[in-house]
């Protein structure tokens, strides 16, 4: 195939427009670099009506929000999901890994729950604490200044709590708890479990003049038309384009590999133009990979040359290794006090107003690492699924299940907003034997070799899920709530969800001081190619029970400023 090469050489070519790539584009462009962003999906701007799903009532979707094409429903802003036509991945025997991809400007930052937690001092040094896995080569103190800047640049609400491993930041004020959250606070305290205001990157107060202030529609997952929540397109890339004019976007462009010269130095990125299927190449002095942990690993593994026969950056054989996702499980309950509710607008922000951070670092438990608890519930907008077996809830009160007419209408009203849930999200222990690699045979629709996943949970994660169910049960019991569904047992790994389901997969290009056991150095720079950087969660040595985005953003600032510094010093 003829490869069309652009004549323009950029200072930096960034692959991926999510949290890592978006932040890098902003920092580099503001420092005077000319930047190209290669994005596999289309342009997206929730302020334009053609892209908007926010504030649309269910009947504007013919399927009332059902997820025929989007994993989280019609109105979720994230295009794509765990399965994408033409872009398969494969599994080793016994592996059941789910790989969520969102092909669009802003990537998965258009979907996530905006839970924005800093990693704490322990989270960077877990090996020191429990002897398992590896420490990061950096500490909380190294990252803290960048977290501070992310807080002020993007905005996150929360409260100063002074909890050692849940560091405070520069918070906007949190919203007041909703009714079911007040019941949760009561129950959790009775069960001896702490609750604090949640920490989400949603603007409850004006941050700057580029973005609006939250109008409480509960729909952050639909992407905000006034940019009151964080996504990489609206909060990083658009402002950078506007203020610098130095960011060129190449959308619908599927990165294939990093191109290197005869000395093994990176010179650009080749990609498939999805509009006409042609292969093209963009030249750059520096290559920044923010394609997501697994996509970046795939691109690097596919970047084979005589100097880098096993893939670029892979002299250690570590690319793809230590892949790990957060643990996840949860349960739901019916709260009798929340039946037959007085109706009022309780939408609030798009997500929880309160949560439980991990509280047992000092306890002796039969599993390592911890988890936090997320709360859901309330009188959310009816959408596809409302009324499904609602009448069955009558069985808890010896009332009639089934019927028609007024009886059914009464059931729907009786139980609307009465069910709430608690979701656990925890830290797994990274394993060398959990990894992604290139499938030797299968290729995607453009002929690019695809990833094959190898992943097994260990008893560390299973026992953590077991503990979480005990905790959740104790809270529901303290609330006087009626637990729905059976408590999962050993036969179902205590309800532990498959890896990849929580969409916090990290670790495939981990950072470290030793080039034999890590892919990048502590500035996200490949040990094997000094002008190639990874700014997504591939560099994570361990994924705390915290959501990864805030750490991706902080490390991307740090890495991008290092790039500028190294360019100035002519080291790269």
């Amino acid at each position, binding site marked *: 195939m003829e490869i069309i090469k652009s004549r323009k050489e950029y200072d930096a070519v960034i692959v991926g427009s999510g949290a890592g790539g978006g932040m890098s584009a902003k920092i580099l462009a503001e420092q005077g670099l000319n930047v190209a962003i290669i994005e596999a999906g289309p342009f997206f701007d929730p302020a334009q009506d053609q892209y908007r799903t926010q504030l649309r009532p269910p009947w504007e979707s013919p*399927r009332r929000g059902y997820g025929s094409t989007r994993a989280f429903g*019609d109105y979720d802003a994230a295009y794509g999901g765990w399965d994408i036509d033409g872009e398969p991945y494969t599994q080793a025997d016994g592996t059941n890994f789910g790989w969520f991809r969102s092909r669009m400007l802003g990537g998965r930052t258009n979907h996530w729950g905006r839970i924005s937690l800093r990693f704490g001092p322990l989270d960077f040094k877990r090996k020191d604490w429990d002897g398992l896995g590896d420490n990061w080569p950096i500490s909380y103190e190294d990252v803290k200044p960048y977290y501070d800047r992310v807080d002020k640049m993007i905005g996150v609400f929360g409260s*100063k709590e002074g909890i050692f491993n849940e560091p*405070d930041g520069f918070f906007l004020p949190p919203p007041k708890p909703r009714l079911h959250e007040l019941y949760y606070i009561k129950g959790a305290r009775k069960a001896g479990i702490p609750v604090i205001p949640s920490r989400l990157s949603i603007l409850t107060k004006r941050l700057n003049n580029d973005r609006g202030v939250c109008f409480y529609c509960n729909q952050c997952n639909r992407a905000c038309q006034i940019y009151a929540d964080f996504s990489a397109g609206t909060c990083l890339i658009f402002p950078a384009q506007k203020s610098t004019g130095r960011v060129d976007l190449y959308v619908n462009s599927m990165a294939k590999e990093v191109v290197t010269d005869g000395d093994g130095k990176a010179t650009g990125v080749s990609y498939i133009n999805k509009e006409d299927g042609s292969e093209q190449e963009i030249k750059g002095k520096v290559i920044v990979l923010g394609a997501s942990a697994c996509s970046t690993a795939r691109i690097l593994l596919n970047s084979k040359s005589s100097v880098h026969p096993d893939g670029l950056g892979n002299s250690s054989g570590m690319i793809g290794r230590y892949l790990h996702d957060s643990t996840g499980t949860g349960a739901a309950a019916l709260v009798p006090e929340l039946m037959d509710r007085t109706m009022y607008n309780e939408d609030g922000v798009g997500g929880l107003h309160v949560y439980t951070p991990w509280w047992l670092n000092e306890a002796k438990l039969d599993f390592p690492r911890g988890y936090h608890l997320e709360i859901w519930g309330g009188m959310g907008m009816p959408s596809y699924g409302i009324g499904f077996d609602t009448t069955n809830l009558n069985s808890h009160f010896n009332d009639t299940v089934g019927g028609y007419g007024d009886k059914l209408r009464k059931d729907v009203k009786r139980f609307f907003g009465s069910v709430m849930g608690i979701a656990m999200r925890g830290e797994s222990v990274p394993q060398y034997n959990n990894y992604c690699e290139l499938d030797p045979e299968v290729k995607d629709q453009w002929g690019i070799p695809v990833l094959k996943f190898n992943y097994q949970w260990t008893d560390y994660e299973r026992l953590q899920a077991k503990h979480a169910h005990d905790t959740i049960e104790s809270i529901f019991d303290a609330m006087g709530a009626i637990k729905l569904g059976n408590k999962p047992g050993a036969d179902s790994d205590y309800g532990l969800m498959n890896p990849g389901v929580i969409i916090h997969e990290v670790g495939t290009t981990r950072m470290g001081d030793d080039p034999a056991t890590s892919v990048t150095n502590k500035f996200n720079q490949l040990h094997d190619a000094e002008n190639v950087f990874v700014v997504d969660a591939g560099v994570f040595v361990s994924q705390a029970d915290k959501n990864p985005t805030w750490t991706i953003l902080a490390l991307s600032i740090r890495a991008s400023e290092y790039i500028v510094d190294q360019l100035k010093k002519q080291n790269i």
Partner: protein
Amino acid sequence: MDRRESLKTMLIGALGTGALLNGCVPGKENPKKLQDIYDFSSYGRTEEEKQRDADVFADNFFTDHQLETVAVMCDLILPATDTAGSASDAHVPAFIDFMVKDAPSWQDDFEIGLRWLDGYSKQKFGYDFVLLTHDQQMVIIEEIAYPDKATEVTQPGVDFYREIRNITLTGYYTTQMGFDDLGYVGNRPNVWDGVPDEVLKEHGLEYEPEWLAKCVDQSKREVTAEWDEDGNLIS
């Protein structure tokens, strides 16, 4: 006699032998297609999704007779009340007609269920379900609407009723009519400032002063955030 009763009487009165011979039910003309009722030209779709929608809209699954039966069932499940319209007033049959094409996992349930329903109706009353009188239809509904009452004979009908009841309720409560019936008042811009006082009182709850002190002061939401060096919000 309330409005519902009078409507029912009118319907039974109008249901003469002519209607039976013609095999159609008055007031139950073939429901329009969902895309003829609502405007789906812009709800944030990608190009691929637009194409997929067009394909599903152009497709057909139900026969006229099946769709007619679905429409009759929907209105037996949710007839009009004094204050709220019926399932077909909320265009639920057209919604179901779309959903079975969009999510084909429904198709077997409907194929099998509708066939069972007509078979049982014929066996019991000699005609397809739509040709029965309202009272006859209600005899069958009473037999299949309650899982506890299922017998070996009616179990397939009970299973089908559950499916069509579920999708009817979803189709109804995801419309403006359903919102109004439920009293749902969200999905509109507002400045949320906590659970209303009267609701807190109703539940014997209150916001703790210490917790409240951390929360947003909505009178200052438009004041640009500023912090001191220790991260205390000072604006």
